[in-house]
């Protein structure tokens, strides 16, 4: 075996240029592939984390019809008991009750339809990171009466600045139109401009006062100690309380859970596409190496080298050739991913539209050891498959090739 590896290694360097080109292609291909996988992963995970942490939370509960209908009278019954339950469950890290109604925002410039979200700034800060989206002014925690924060796009649209006033008009629970004037204390910019155009935040107490006679809530966002607890907590909530529906983030945002699955498929797909392209390179190089060595292989079989050994020799050559490139490519990719996993890759110049769709343009690539091993496995399998064909051809060589001229 040592001799076979030796002979294979030297055969590879018989055509240094040809082998180098193939190895370089494998290095470049795998590097690009694995880094792309890392970026895709990073992008997905960031998107998921961001949406969970700033908006969606691990689980939410609503009146079963609220999400579809949106009427403010579809509120959460027995919210005090639910609060109590959530406070006493060790798996729950934080939660926040929100009062929500749809209405009109009116400025001297124009009128827009918005969703008005009444939040308790203290519990909301513990539950989500939405306050980090404030780009001007402050969140809802100072004591300015009737404070409102609005998205940057919406504010620009209405020519509004911090300190200006706007009027919010909506139906109360008795279907009476009510309106109130609110002071802009902050401007936010989330990852999605669409979200920024359609949502404004006020304190829940300010909203409840105009909406109903007693405290009402339409949504509770729940953060858990970790994401995996979501389905268990959700099903317990659903069986413990009637008239509500709790849902995990996967149920709330099918877009997100699809992303997770897509991520996995992408990893395999990217690796496969790159490896299949490389497989043709390996095949081509090995067939060339084979055809120009027919006489030599004929000689080896003539003097008594078994066909199994010839097969092994050719396979070894292909495998060494590929694995040299693959190892280098994957190592480079791993170093690249590690390097950028803390500093991030800034795709700002390519990502003009990304912010509008709620995507980050600084990506922190991620590659789990499992994925690394999976990619390695794909590489090894494809290499073996691509080398098997030339090796099979080599095995069938007639010993009489040894005495053919030219």
């Amino acid at each position, binding site marked *: 075996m040592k*001799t076979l590896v030796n*002979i294979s290694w030297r055969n590879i360097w018989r055509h240094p240029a040809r082998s180098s080109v193939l190895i370089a292609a494998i290095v470049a291909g795998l590097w690009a592939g694995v880094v792309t996988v890392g970026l895709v992963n990073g992008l997905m995970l960031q998107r998921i984390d961001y949406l969970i942490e700033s908006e969606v939370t691990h689980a939410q509960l609503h009146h079963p019809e609220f999400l579809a209908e949106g009427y403010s009278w579809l509120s959460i019954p027995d919210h005090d008991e639910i609060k109590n339950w959530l406070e006493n469950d060790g798996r729950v890290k934080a939660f926040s009750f929100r009062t929500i109604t749809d209405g009109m925002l009116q400025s001297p410039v124009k009128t827009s339809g918005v969703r008005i979200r009444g939040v308790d700034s203290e519990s909301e800060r513990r539950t989500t990171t939405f306050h980090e989206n404030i780009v001007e002014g402050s969140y809802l925690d100072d004591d300015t009466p009737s404070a409102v924060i609005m998205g940057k796009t919406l504010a620009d649209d209405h020519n509004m600045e911090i300190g200006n006033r706007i009027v919010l008009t909506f139906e109360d629970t008795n279907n009476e139109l009510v309106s109130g004037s609110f002071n802009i204390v902050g401007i936010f910019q989330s990852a999605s401009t669409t979200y920024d155009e359609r949502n404004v935040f006020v304190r829940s107490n300010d909203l409840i006062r105009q909406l109903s006679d007693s405290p009402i809530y339409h949504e509770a966002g729940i953060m858990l100690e970790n994401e995996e607890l979501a389905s268990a907590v959700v099903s317990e909530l659903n069986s413990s309380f009637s008239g509500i529906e709790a849902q995990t983030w996967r149920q709330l945002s099918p877009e997100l859970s699809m992303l997770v699955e897509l991520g996995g498929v992408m990893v395999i797909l990217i690796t496969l596409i790159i490896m299949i392209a490389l497989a043709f390179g390996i095949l081509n190089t090995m067939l060339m190496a084979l055809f120009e060595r027919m006489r030599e292989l004929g000689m080896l079989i003539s*003097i*008594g*080298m*078994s066909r199994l050994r010839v097969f092994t020799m050719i396979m070894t050559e292909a495998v060494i050739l590929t694995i040299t490139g693959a190892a280098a490519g994957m190592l480079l990719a791993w170093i690249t991913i590690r390097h950028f996993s803390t500093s991030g890759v800034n795709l700002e110049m390519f990502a003009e539209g990304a912010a509008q769709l709620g995507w980050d343009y600084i990506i922190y690539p991620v590659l789990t050891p499992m994925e690394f091993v999976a990619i390695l496995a794909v590489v090894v399998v494809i290499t073996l498959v691509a080398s098997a064909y030339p090796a099979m051809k080599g095995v069938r060589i007639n*010993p009489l090739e040894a*005495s053919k001229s030219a």
Partner: protein
Amino acid sequence: MSIIKTENLSKVYNPDTVPVHALNNVNISFEEGEFTAVRGPSGSGKTTLLNMIGGLDKPTEGSVTIDGVDISKLKDSKRIDFRLHNIGFVFQHYNLIPVFTARENVSFIMLLQKRGKKEIRERADALLDKVGLSKKKDSRPVQMSGGEQQRVAVARALASEPKFILADEPTANLDTESAMNLLDIMNRMNKEQNVTFIFSTHDQRVIDRARRVITMVDGAIHKDEEQHVAEQA
């Protein structure tokens, strides 16, 4: 007892399209220690005969028996193994492994035979000394002349300690001096170690060195004669 014996050996190429009767009912035997030339016009079947005796190709009819084993009946893999341990080959085009040095080329066949490391090294060195390549042991084929390469090929054939060595036109690519030098070496091995050589050739000076000369015509043995060879100085 003969080490090689053919019985009604026939070979037809392309039996289904344009049949070529390369060998017709050849009955011949070879003894241990022979130094034999096979001659004959081009296309007379010299190469075909050597390929049959060497187990590189299967006869259409008849048999080839080596040391009591009918090699035409062996499976391909068994035949390869049989060649490894019983038959040495020297080719017209030398056919060394280009990425290996002279020493590695000679060692390789012994590695295939699974001999011990030390034995391989010693034998390879001794054989290269014997064929006059003491200074070229670490040279690769491209760094050697045709004559030198062919001497490595002879050393390689000797290394496996075969029952006989077949050489199809071993001097065809060599100049006269190299050819005679190669013949000297083969002859010495034959004399000193009783190694059996059977070689085909067109070259009268090579034929003159053989003790037995077989002449082939149209796939049959036309003449088979002993000849006295003057001792070389």
